[in-house]
Structure formats: C-alpha cells, structure tokens
C-alpha cells in the first residue's frame, strides 16, 4: 500500500506540470517515427528485409514505443542523485525501500505519459491499420504479456544497479548513457536484433538488454522461435542481475556518506 500511495502522490505531483508531459511525449515519439521512415526507404520496392515487412516494422516500433512506457522506467539518475546529495538519508531510516520508491515514482510519471500517448498511438495504429498485423493465439498473448512483465522487472533491476553505482562513482550519468546505448544496439530498440550483424546478435545473447524489449516485442510479432525457452532466459537474467544488484547494494551502503544535515 505504501508504494501505491507513493504512485498516487507522484501522479498528483506530475499533473501540476502538464507542459512537461506533452513535450516528453513529442520527444519520445520522434525516434520511432524516424526509424519507421528510414526502414521504408530501405525497403523501397521490396516487400521485406530480413523477414520484416512494412507492417512488421510499424508494429515493431509501435510495440517498442508502447513497451518503452510500460517496461522502461529510467530512474537510475534519481537513485544516483539521492545517493550523491544525501537525499536517501530520510528514506533509509524508514521501513521503506528507497530504490522501489524511485522506481514507483518513475512508473507513475510514465503512466501519465502513457495515458496521454495512448490516443496518439491509437491514431497512428489506425492510420497504418492495413499494415499492422498481429494475430496471436490466447496462449501466445498470455506469454507475450508475461514476457513484457519480465522485461519490465529486468529493466528495473538494470536501472537500480546503475543507480546504486553512485556509491562509488558519484556521477552515474555516463554509465546510464552507456547502458541506454547498449539497450538501443543489443536490446533491439534501434532496430530488430535479427537485422543486426551476426556478431552483435551473438554478443546480445549473453547480455540482459535483449531480454528487456526485443524478446517480448518479437513474441508480439509472432516471431519468437521458442517462447518458453526465451521466458526461461528472461527469468535467469532476472535472478542473476538481482543477485548482482543485492551484492552491490550491501557493499554500497557501507560506503554511503549520507551527505548533508
């Protein structure tokens, strides 16, 4: 309940800054629109590239954009700041997890953005309705939803881990930027992984980024080879990443300097 209350309070706060919400949505929409147009140019007169048709590209980037709102909460900088500025002091003495708090606050903000973005996404989907083709069975839909949920958990753990590196590095934005670059390249946000050079695909298999976006979006497109196996890998990456996070958190707390009075 305490995190639900935090979620509601954040929404109350964010509603006071309407202009920010709109600008953020415009910023978020630019990249996928550009990517769709770029792939249309690449496609030219061809019906497909690497197994992706026009409809697949539109669906892919719509799913990535939608997934970005649902899955990705970029709260590492919030945690980094809380550590750097000592803002964590008050939370650390309460029965309240500061990392979960930042995650919930980011998700609340994203939820509002999603509500505003949904009509835009609906209009875009309607415009390209002849291209957008999603035909999944009940089981596939269920597995896709599970995969999106697992992707969201994995993304949150990666963000939390980057955030708490501030115990050592103080400024974590270069690490956060690097992680985002990896998410673009190895996570399939920039382009479907299967269209990337084989080297990238091999490296991506051993990194967690692929299991955040690419795996669930592929399932949505019906392109997942072995959905159960991919879900299993998502779980394994969650367990491993959470283990690493826990070790860093415990070691980090011992280094925490709690700046300020």
């Amino acid at each position, binding site marked *: 309940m305490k995190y639900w209350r935090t979620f509601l*309070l954040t929404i109350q706060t964010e509603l006071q800054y309407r202009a920010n919400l709109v600008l953020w949505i415009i910023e978020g929409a630019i990249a996928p629109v550009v990517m769709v147009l770029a792939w249309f140019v690449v496609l030219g007169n061809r019906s497909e590239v690497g197994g992706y048709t026009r409809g697949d590209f539109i669906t892919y980037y719509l799913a990535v954009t939608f997934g970005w709102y649902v899955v990705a909460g970029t709260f590492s900088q919030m945690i980094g700041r809380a550590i750097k500025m000592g803002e964590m*002091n008050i939370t650390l003495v309460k*029965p309240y997890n500061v990392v979960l708090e930042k995650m919930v606050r980011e998700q609340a903000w994203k939820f509002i953005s999603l509500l505003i973005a949904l009509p835009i996404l609906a209009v875009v989907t309607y415009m390209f309705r002849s291209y957008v083709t999603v035909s999944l069975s009940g089981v596939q839909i269920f597995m896709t939803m599970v995969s999106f949920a697992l992707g969201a958990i994995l993304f949150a753990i990666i963000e939390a881990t980057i955030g708490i590196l501030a115990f050592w590095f103080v400024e974590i934005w270069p690490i956060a930027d690097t992680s985002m670059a990896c998410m673009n390249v190895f996570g399939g946000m920039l382009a479907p992984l299967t269209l990337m050079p084989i080297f990238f695909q091999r490296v991506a298999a051993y990194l967690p980024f692929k299991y955040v976006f690419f795996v669930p979006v592929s399932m949505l497109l019906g392109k997942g080879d072995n959905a159960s196996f991919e879900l299993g890998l998502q779980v394994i990456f969650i367990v491993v990443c959470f283990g690493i996070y826990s070790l860093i958190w415990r070691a980090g*707390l011992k280094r925490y300097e*709690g700046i300020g*009075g």
Partner: protein
Amino acid sequence: MAEKTVISVNHLQKYFTVPEKTAGFSASLRSLVHRKYKTVKAVDDVTFSIREGEIVGFLGPNGAGKTTTLKMLTGILYPTNGTVDVLGHIPQKHEKVFQKQISLVMGQKNQLWWDLPATDAFLLNKEIYGISDATYNKAFAELTELLGVAPVLATPVRKLSLGQRMKCELIAALLHEPKILFLDEPTIGLDVATQKRVREFLIKINRERGTTIMLTSHYMEDVEAVSSRVIMINHGHKLYDGTIAKLMATYAKDKYLMVEFSKPVQSTRLAEVGEVVSSRETRATIAVPRKDHAKRAALLLTRFPVENLDIKEMKLEDVILEHFSK
C-alpha cells in the same frame, strides 16, 4: 523515570576518505592520474549511553561529529569501528521492527512532498509505518493542534514558511509514535517565537509520551530549554557528558555582577571588584569568582554609588565558548 538504556554507543569511530587536491589547473590534471586521499576522523572513539525518557542535547561546533554520530545511531552510516545498540537493535541492519520505533528530523533534509499539502505526506507515512486509522486520527488531531498548523494543512508545502514546514516535519516524524526521536538542528533558521513553540512541543512530547529525544543544535537556548543532559563533542572526541547544572558548576567559575550606578564611574576603578566585561557611563558588567561573589558584591555596594545590582550566572554559551570550542 525508568532506568532502561535505550541507546548504547561504544568506542564509536567513523573515518571518511576524502580526495585531496590543491588549487589550479595543473593540480586538476595531476589528480586525474594520481589522486591523493586523506582520512578525516569525523567521530573518534565516542562512548555514551542514554536512558529511556531522557532528552539529551548533543553539542559541538560545525564539523564536530554530531550529525555523523546521529546518522550512525539511525543506521544511515556504518561505523568504521565500535558498536551501536539502539533499542536492542543494530541500526545498520535496517530491520523494519527497529525503524518503526525511531524517527529522524533533519533541519535541511525534508520528507514532505514539495508540490503537495503536508497531509499527503502524513498519509504516506501512515502507510509506511502501518499506522492504524484510530492511532493516526488521534495522533494527527493531537499534533496538529499542539503545533497550531491546522490552517495550513491544505496548502502545498512549497508555499509554507520555514517554521510551518518544520512543524509539519515534526508531525510527520511523530505520527507513528516513535520511542526515540532524533533531531538534527530542528530550529535552524526559525524565528524566535517558532523556536520557543518547537521547544515547548518537544518537552510536552517527552513528558506525555515518554519519548526519548536526542537533539543536536547550534542554539544553546534549544539545549538549555529542553534537555537536562548534554554530550559535547569536538573534532570527533567526546569532551563532556553530564547535566547542564554540573557543567555550569564545574566550568562556570564566574558570576556576573550587572550594576547600575547613580553617576558615571570610571571602569579602571571597578577592576578592584573583578574583571570588567563591559562598562559604559552608569552601567557595568563585572565578572567575579563564583565562590566569593557575595563578598565582591558587598565591596561594590560599599565603595560605589550603586543604584541597582543584579547577579547573573554565566550563560551555557559562554562556558562552551570558553572551554570547549578551541
């Protein structure tokens, strides 16, 4: 008052490693390749214990180690060495059962939500601490009335004055009825009237709820008004631990004779009575040894045209400045 020990600190140390760099561009380049560090001993071998229901003032100049000690007592910082036991728990374990029994108010770090009314933060704390509706409603009504903040509870925190904010911070910290309240500079920046109200509030909370209070403050008035015991530290070392009365008896060797004459008196003539602290025409303040202040007062009365005479104790502040702030 119960004798149960609720805070026990033994040989507590906290050392920080901080990078060192001299001024200038070349020094910055050098530090990029070869960075030098130094060790700062923020708290160095501090031992004390606090009993249930006590109000203890934690005194010392800036950088003395007060806040660092407080942060170790609440689990924010890990000690370099030594042990901390608060209510039978090690604060650094961050156990929920422990966290629900303490509260921390910091003068410069707040838990209220800037854009929302304070009541929203109170309701969040209700969830965080798992406070029942009945307890919350009772505590909320009692605390808001005691601090007189009812009229501002619907106002966004950013629109509140510093005093109103601090009062709301206190309410947020006390809703779950903690056994120990840690306060770090609670009256910093507040006007005199609000300071007084906060002090009175703390005394009331201590008396009625039996809340143990430990507060750090720069304002001696805070400490004198609310606590009977002080722990003084400087450069990370404990210098004094005991009652204010004992402190004054030990270190306040002088008393002040505040005198008003019927006609101007030269200050050089007053030196035979004691050390002239200030002198201006018909008024003077003379410091005299505590043990024979009566004799000196009599001397003053017989040799000078005294119209009015007051005998005052040294202030706690003066004692601290003289004996502990070097």
